[in-house]
């Protein structure tokens, strides 16, 4: 070994786990995202009594790969009047922002890129929210539709970003820290997921994360009914592919933030109840159950994936020297399970609810959700004060303050409805509100 190799080896020795995690995330997330899109299409098809993608092999499982390759091989069209530099950067920013914000997160107790960043969750939401700059740069396509849509979408995302941030402040109030690991440890220490101590904050974050991930029913960005993704009108092929990776990664980011802050991160249900320690075997057991079901239903491809997952989970039991990996694997199972449930909720909402008009969702954020989030923050603070300093019962305090917050919500909605009823009638379509 030459002397010049020493720094490289030292570097690899110090950072190998971070490098491995980074490589896995960069390599796997685009693929995973393609399959989130496939699950969405299949789920929509199921709820609408259609078949969904079945054209390609393995019951449509190759559909995502096929459409990705199709996008990648398309002719690269640069509109004549576009600003070359802006147009080049437009697809990179949403994708890079969403993926980089993943690096601040923990996917289970062991799987992370960066160890204990001091501003943890603030880093994740801060970098993640930069992705709307990609929309704003859509102006570079020099296309009237794109610029008008870019401004409208940015206004919406900025408004709901404040709502989401205020909801996160309520969660941080409970944890008392911004570090991801410390937030989850705080939920272990208080032996309760923060969703139960601040249910209204979780609800507000749920609503605000929908436009944050450009999802129906609150998106102006990709309004299928009348505009059809104007902000991406000039982008095609590979650039559209990068934009879509950014959008779907954003879903994973908001779901992970909600999971970490409100749903207990990688903790199993009832982490402090020792007679439920058997739940530590639940991941392997559930995966075996899923494999059996898939074999019974003759879904061979899914069964194969489940079987590989089962092997990964059973490996530490066969080779005891690998048993240090058990908490990490179980944590990753619970974390990804909660994230998947959150993403499934997004898919479900997209199919079940009609899209809001632009003025309606701006009213919702500014006149209902922002005051509600501020009031909720105050009442969460009051609840902590009563419980920790005056020693009142936690559940009594939580339910009373939640009831107060819900009363404020009812008052805000009533007030808003009365003003709408008394004022001018709403415009017929948001395409008139520029």
């Amino acid at each position, binding site marked *: 070994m030459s002397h010049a190799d020493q720094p490289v080896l030292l570097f690899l020795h110090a*950072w190998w786990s*971070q*490098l491995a995690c*980074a490589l896995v995330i*960069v390599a796997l997330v685009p693929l995973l995202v393609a399959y989130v899109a496939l699950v969405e299409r299949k789920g929509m098809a199921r709820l609408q009594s259609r078949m969904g993608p079945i054209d390609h092999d393995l019951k449509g499982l190759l559909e995502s790969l096929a459409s990705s390759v199709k996008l*990648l091989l*398309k*002719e690269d*069209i*640069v*509109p*004549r*009047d576009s600003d070359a530099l802006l147009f080049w950067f437009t*697809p*990179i920013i949403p*994708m*890079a922002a969403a*993926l*980089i914000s993943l*690096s601040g997160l923990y996917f289970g107790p062991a799987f992370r*890129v*960066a160890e204990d*960043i*001091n501003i943890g969750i*603030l880093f994740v939401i801060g970098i993640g929210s930069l992705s709307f700059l990609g929309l704003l740069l859509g102006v570079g396509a*020099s*296309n009237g*539709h794109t610029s*008008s849509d870019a401004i*409208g979408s940015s*206004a919406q995302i*900025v*408004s709901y970003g*404040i709502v989401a*941030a*205020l909801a996160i*402040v309520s969660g941080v109030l409970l944890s*008392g*820290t911004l570090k991801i690991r410390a937030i989850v440890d705080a939920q272990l220490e208080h032996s309760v997921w923060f969703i139960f101590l601040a249910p209204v904050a979780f609800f507000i974050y749920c609503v605000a994360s929908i436009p944050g991930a450009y999802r129906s029913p609150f998106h102006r960005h990709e309004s299928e009914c009348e505009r059809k993704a*104007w902000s991406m*009108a*000039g982008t095609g*092929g*590979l650039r559209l*592919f*990068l934009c879509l990776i950014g959008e779907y990664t954003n879903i994973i980011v908001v779901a992970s933030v909600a999971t970490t802050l409100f749903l207990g991160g990688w903790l199993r249900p009832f982490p402090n109840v020792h007679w439920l320690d058997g739940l530590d075997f639940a991941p392997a057991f559930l995966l075996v159950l899923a494999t059996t079901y898939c074999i019974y239903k003759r879904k061979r491809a899914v069964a194969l994936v489940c079987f590989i997952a089962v092997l990964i989970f059973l490996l530490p039991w066969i080779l005891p020297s690998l048993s240090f990996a058990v908490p990490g694997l179980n944590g990753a199972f619970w974390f990804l399970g909660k994230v998947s449930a959150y993403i499934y909720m997004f898919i479900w909402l997209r199919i079940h609810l009609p899209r809001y008009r*632009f*003025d309606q969702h701006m*009213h919702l954020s500014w*006149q209902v959700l*922002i005051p509600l989030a*501020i009031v909720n923050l*105050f009442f969460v*603070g009051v609840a*902590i*004060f009563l419980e920790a*300093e005056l020693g009142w019962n936690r559940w009594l305090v939580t339910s009373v303050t939640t009831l107060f917050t819900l009363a404020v919500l009812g008052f805000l909605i009533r007030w808003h409805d009365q003003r709408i009823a008394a*004022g*001018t009638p709403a415009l017929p379509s948001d395409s008139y509100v*520029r």
Partner: protein
Amino acid sequence: MPANYFPVLIFALFVLAFPVAALLVFKFIRPESSDDPAGPQESVPDEEGKVHPPPSSRFYFVAVVSVIFSVATVFLLLWAIRYRAWVADHSGGVALVALSFFLAILLVGYIWLYKKGALEWTR
């Protein structure tokens, strides 16, 4: 503490390399682009956006108001991080009064904005 951000930097380089590599690699694989650069998409008249009126002044309101509320959120975040420690020091009541004072100022501003109609979209 900056050392903790080093993996993030490496990760960011990986992420940024991904689209650049994809754009470069597929440039050689995909079919040749046509000679004529494409015009505007989706039947937009080629008149430098003349068909599109300038954006409504509402968007400027949203920009300014959202900056105010973002800064307020940052102050609230700092308060929220310290709050548990204050409660442990038995000075949570003082912290709550301070918060109420801050929120009252914010509320006055909010009501003023509301009266001015800055938060209305259909007027």
